[in-house]
Each structure stands twice: as C-alpha cells, then as structure tokens.
C-alpha cells in the first residue's frame, strides 16, 4: 500500500504527487503576486517565502525522483493509443523537468542579483549561492527565464490536468482515481 504496484500507485507516490503539485502551483501564484505588490515589507517577506518553498520543491522532487527510480510504474490502460502514450510520456517528462529547472533558475536569480540577499530557507538553513556572474543583466536574464519557464510549466500542468479529467469523465478509466487513493494491499484484494 505504501509502494506502487503494477497497476496502482502507493501512498508514498500519491503524497509526493499532491504535495509537490500543491506547492508548485502555489509557487506560480505566489510568484505572480509577489512581483506585483507595492508594499516593500510584504514584498520582502513574500519573496523569502517563495525562495523557501522553491527549495522545498527542489528537495522533495529529488527524493521523489529517487523513489520513482526505485519503484515500479503502474502501466497505462490498454485502451490508450500510441499517440496518447507518447503524449503522456512527453508531458510527464516535461513536468519532472520543470520541478528541477524552475527552482534552479530561481536559485540562479538569488545567486546573480547584485542585492546579494541571502537565502535563509524557512529561517533555518542558509543556502549558498550558485557560482554565477553577479550583475543587473544576469539577474534580469534569470528572472525572465524563471518567469517564462514557470508559466510554460503551468501550461503543461494544465494539459496534464485536462488529460486526467478526460480519462476520468470521458474514457471512464482509473487514471485519475489511482492517483487519489492507494489500492488495497494485494492480500486484501484477493
């Protein structure tokens, strides 16, 4: 029940999926809002929360990838066409990539900004800077990359959500429900 099986997700994979999904989408919203508030005190604090949660996404995603590598992946329903399978692979790979690339470009902003504001993750751990050029131009480049990649990721996530809903309501298969709750342990199922 904790681990994946040939046709279902275990609790660990399900928790990784939803916790990271929630933080990642929350981060996109927070990132949009924080760069538009005019109150400096609030803005400073929102930026620090955004950085902390960004490193949380990065850390959780690294552990999730290891967990995925050590787990079996539930197989796709027989009814899926080749195009759907290829599409699914591309979208999933893009989402996994985004979980690393988007936080890393965020880290690059904090590292290249001449403001040199330290990253103090949840006021607990100081995160060192990446060895990048520190300048206004470098900061602007990484800021733009981070924002575009984040909004692009949001588009991919929207495709992923639409596909899940399509499976659930149109094709009426278990693609969505198997990510909502773990299947009973094999012994109980028999």
């Amino acid at each position: 029940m904790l681990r994946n099986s040939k046709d279902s997700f275990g609790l660990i994979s399900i928790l990784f999926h939803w916790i990271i999904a929630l933080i990642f989408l929350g981060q996109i919203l927070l990132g949009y809002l924080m760069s538009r508030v005019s109150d400096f005190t609030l803005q400073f604090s929102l930026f620090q929360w955004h950085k902390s949660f960004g490193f949380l996404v990065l850390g959780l995603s690294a552990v999730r990838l290891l967990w995925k590598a050590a787990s079996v992946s539930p197989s796709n329903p027989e009814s899926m066409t080749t195009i759907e399978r290829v599409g699914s692979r591309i979208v999933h790979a893009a989402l996994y990539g985004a979980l690393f690339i988007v936080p890393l470009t965020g880290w690059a902003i904090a590292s290249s900004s001449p403001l040199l504001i330290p990253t103090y993750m949840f006021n607990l751990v100081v995160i060192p800077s990446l060895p990048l050029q520190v300048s206004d131009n470098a900061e602007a480049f990484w800021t733009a990359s981070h924002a575009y990649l984040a909004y692009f990721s949001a588009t991919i996530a929207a495709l992923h959500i639409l596909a899940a809903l399509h499976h659930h309501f149109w094709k009426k298969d278990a693609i969505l429900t198997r990510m909502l709750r773990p299947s009973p342990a094999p012994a109980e199922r028999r």
Partner: protein
Amino acid sequence: MPARKRLRRVQVIFAGMLAMAASVAAADTLSEVAGRYDIQPSSHIGFTVAQVGGGGITGDFKKFSGVFALNKSDIAHSMIDFTLYPESVVTGQARIENFLRSDAVFDTENFPTIKFKSTQITQTSPDTAVISGLLTARGKSSPATFQATLSGHGKNTITFHVDGKIMRSRYGMDVGTPIYSNVVQFDMTIEAQRT
C-alpha cells in the same frame, strides 16, 4: 638590595610617573578642548547591518548636523544633539537605498529626521567616554549608547571616533530579520569646529 629587585622598583616608579603624566595630560586636554562645537559635513556616519552567512549591508549617511558642548570641569556635564537625514543614505545599490527610504524602513516621507540627544556622558578613560541618550526614529524614542574615543584635536577642531549598536526593532524597522541582523553597527568619525 639584589639588582633584580632594584630594577623592579625602578620600573614601578617609572610606571607611576607615566600614569601621573598621563592624567595631567588628560586634564590639560579637557581644559584645552572644552567649548561648543558644530559637527562638520566632513564627518563620516557609517553603518553596517550583518546578514546570515556573512557579509551585510554597509553604507553611510551624507546629510546630518549637530552640536556638542564639552564641559571644562566635568565631562559629565557635556552634551550632544545630533540630527540625521535618512533620505541621504548611500549604500552603492539604488534598489537597497530606495528600500531603506521607503516605509519598510526609514519612511523618510513621514519621518525625515532621526535625532539623538544625550542624557548622560561618562568618561571611561583619559580619551574615551560613553554617551547615553535618547534616539528618536520613525516617531519612536528609545535609549541608545555610543562609545566615543578622542582621536585628535587642534586649537579649534576636534575629532572623535564614535561607535555603537542600535537595535532597529525598537524603532519599528525590523523588516528583513533574521536574514539581516537586528543590530545596526554604527561606525562614525565626528569632525567638529569650535563655535
């Protein structure tokens, strides 16, 4: 008397003479420098706010004014009155300066000055003193203490090195803690002209 003991006695006497000379010199200095002074724009009002992981924000204030009086007979009766214009903050980073001037920190629009008025000056050695007083910033007043060291004087000029630590949270300026320290370390060179 063994030679070593004699030498020791000579040393003690010599040290005693030196101490007397120093205190005479100090008394001379105080009567020499007594008077009223205007703080000159050539003074330097520097500050540092440390940050986690090392480094910090270092800057200085370009605009300030102040007067002080050194009492001839008793340093304790001296006083200082100092005004700082936080709008003049310089850090070498325009975005940091704008942040400091904003209502997140100094709120220079509503509180254009930071004032310090001494309440007690205590001499701690021939050329050092502790200055206690009331610091008013952002409409809040709280006691503050600075250490002053006489670094030189001419006939009508005098120079002090002054440093002190201010807890910015007491003045409603605790934005950014604990990434940035609550302690603002002041490092000042006060150059003054007798009036």
